[in-house]
């Protein structure tokens, strides 16, 4: 009985893993296959003569290198902005009480901005960006992605701050530190795991965002990877090889960051320091 359960458990895990990884594997192989092998029947799963011509095509022949740089700037920039603003807002909401429960209403109002379908804002935002002469700039995307990530950061971080005992900052202040110093030296180090998790999420959202990037950018100067990759589907043909090569490279930064902060994601808050 136990054996059957164990087998079943692993079988389900295996299925989930296959569903997640087979497409990635297929994309990876396509990026290294010659065009003639890409659509071979029966499909060539493992054995084909590898080539790097698609990578050369994507990053030397076409502008994927530029898209990659744009994506990095936009994703990192908007994540950094959202984290700084959102963390400060979340700390205030977690610590200070406003009369008539205004702090709670404010928090809910911030969250409610996420309930609106993004496409509703596309046209008004485009008009605003046009008047500000920001269309087809990376800055426009940084601003929009910051705005979209902000409510998420506020809500995530508010929860993490609420878990930090008030005694700790009060102790720091009695010890002679200012409130901001207590925040920086005591509170912030304790919420680092939460900060890392929130940052990964923001990065992924900004990295993958398609709609606004499509609406706001027209040329290689500002275009991000998702739009750039989709742009290879043209009326004359679909560049599967170059698209796959670009997509493979697009996975790398997020994967690297997630691995780098993995220990923070896994490690829980170091509790037990307060109660005896």
């Amino acid at each position, binding site marked *: 009985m136990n054996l059957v359960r164990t087998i079943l458990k692993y079988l389900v895990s295996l299925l989930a893993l296959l569903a997640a990884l087979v497409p990635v594997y297929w994309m990876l192989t396509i990026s290294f296959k010659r065009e003639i092998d890409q659509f071979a029947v029966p499909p060539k799963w493992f054995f084909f003569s590898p080539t790097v011509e698609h990578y050369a095509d994507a990053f030397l022949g076409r502008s994927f290198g530029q898209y990659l740089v744009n994506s990095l700037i936009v994703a990192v920039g908007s994540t950094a902005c959202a984290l700084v603003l959102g963390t400060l807002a979340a700390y205030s909401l977690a610590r200070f009480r406003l009369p008539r429960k205004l702090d709670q209403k404010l928090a809910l109002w911030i969250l409610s901005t996420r309930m609106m379908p993004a496409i509703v804002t596309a046209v008004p935002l485009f008009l605003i960006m046009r008047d500000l002469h920001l269309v087809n700039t990376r800055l426009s995307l940084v601003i929009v992605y910051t705005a979209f990530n902000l409510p998420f950061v506020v809500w995530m971080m508010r929860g993490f701050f609420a878990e930090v005992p008030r*005694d700790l900052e009060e*102790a720091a202040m009695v010890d*002679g530190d200012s409130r901001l110093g207590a925040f920086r030296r005591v509170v912030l180090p304790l919420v680092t795991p939460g900060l890392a998790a929130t940052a990964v999420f923001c990065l992924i959202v900004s990295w993958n965002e398609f709609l606004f990037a499509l609406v706001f950018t027209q040329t290689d100067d500002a275009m991000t990877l998702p739009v750039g990759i989709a742009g290879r589907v043209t009326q004359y043909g679909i560049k599967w090889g170059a698209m796959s090569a670009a997509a493979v490279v697009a996975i790398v930064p997020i994967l690297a960051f997630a691995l780098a902060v993995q220990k923070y994601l896994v490690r829980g808050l170091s*509790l*037990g*320091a307060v109660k*005896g």
Partner: protein
Amino acid sequence: MSITLANLTKTFGDSIVVNDLSLEIGDGECVVFLGPSGCGKTTTLRMIAGLEQPTAGEIRINDHPVNDVPPQQRDIAMVFQSYALYPHLTVAQNIAYPLRVRKLASAEIQRQVSQTAALLEIEPLLARRPRDLSGGERQRVALARAIVRHPRAFLMDEPLSNLDAKLRLQMRGELKRLQQTLGTTTVYVTHDQAEAMTLGNRVAVMHKGGLQQFDTPLEIYNCPANRFVAEFVGSPGMNFIEGRIELSQRRFVRNGLSLPLSEGLMEQASGRQLGVCTLGIRPENVRISPAQIDDWMPATVYVTELMGSETLVVAELDSERIIARAAGDLRADPNTAIWIDLDLSRAHLFDHGTGRRL
């Protein structure tokens, strides 16, 4: 450093937590705020620390009003009930924190940290983190962090309440010694009357936000200002017997009881229009005998509690339960007869309505 509280009041919404509290704490004195939970003692301490803003009244440090001075500028150290050690820092970094904030040179910080660690005998712990420490060790680290910067005063919020009974006794003695060695003004909050008696030069007993009595431990024990103080201080607390004073007969009377009043109690009672009042007597002033003695009053044993060094006997005297402290070898079974004598020269009379001592 002297601390003065003048008509201090704190309200949260509709509830009055501290009500018109006035007292003065002298330089180098150790004052204990004693009271049950919710009596406002911790709130008072937090107001002195600057973590809570008074609703009304004034706090003065060395005769300077400090109501608007933020906590970091009051130069007061506080030991929290939870210890509030910084979990991400080592013990050494925890102790160094107040010095680092003051931007001392790192060599000087190092010197003071090791000096303080030596004083509290925690040198072997310096490299560890708070989560790897036992309760008693955390307590010591919290103390070290408080004394390392030689503050003008210590505030302690039930610092021993998270320790087990044996460790609490040990730390209580060490705290007292430390306070006497350093001679720093200390305000100590506790609900444990034994801690208050042993640690305080003076004890402020609080109840429902109000100051009940502010005096030396002995005075509070021997001359409680009211029924609440009498009951709260002492373990077990004072016995109370409801009855009437018959001034003409110089006796305290109740259904089946009639006790002669001593000169002292007569003086207390005289000149007052008395109907009902309450007689209070401490357990150690109640004598008890399993064998019949003339002039002693018969009672029934309700329960006996062995303590080793002594035996607490709860007896029913005229349907009123009285606790007596008896010798450790006394044995008495429940529902058997026992004889009681009250040492009325050590008794007190309380007003029935206000609870105030006459």
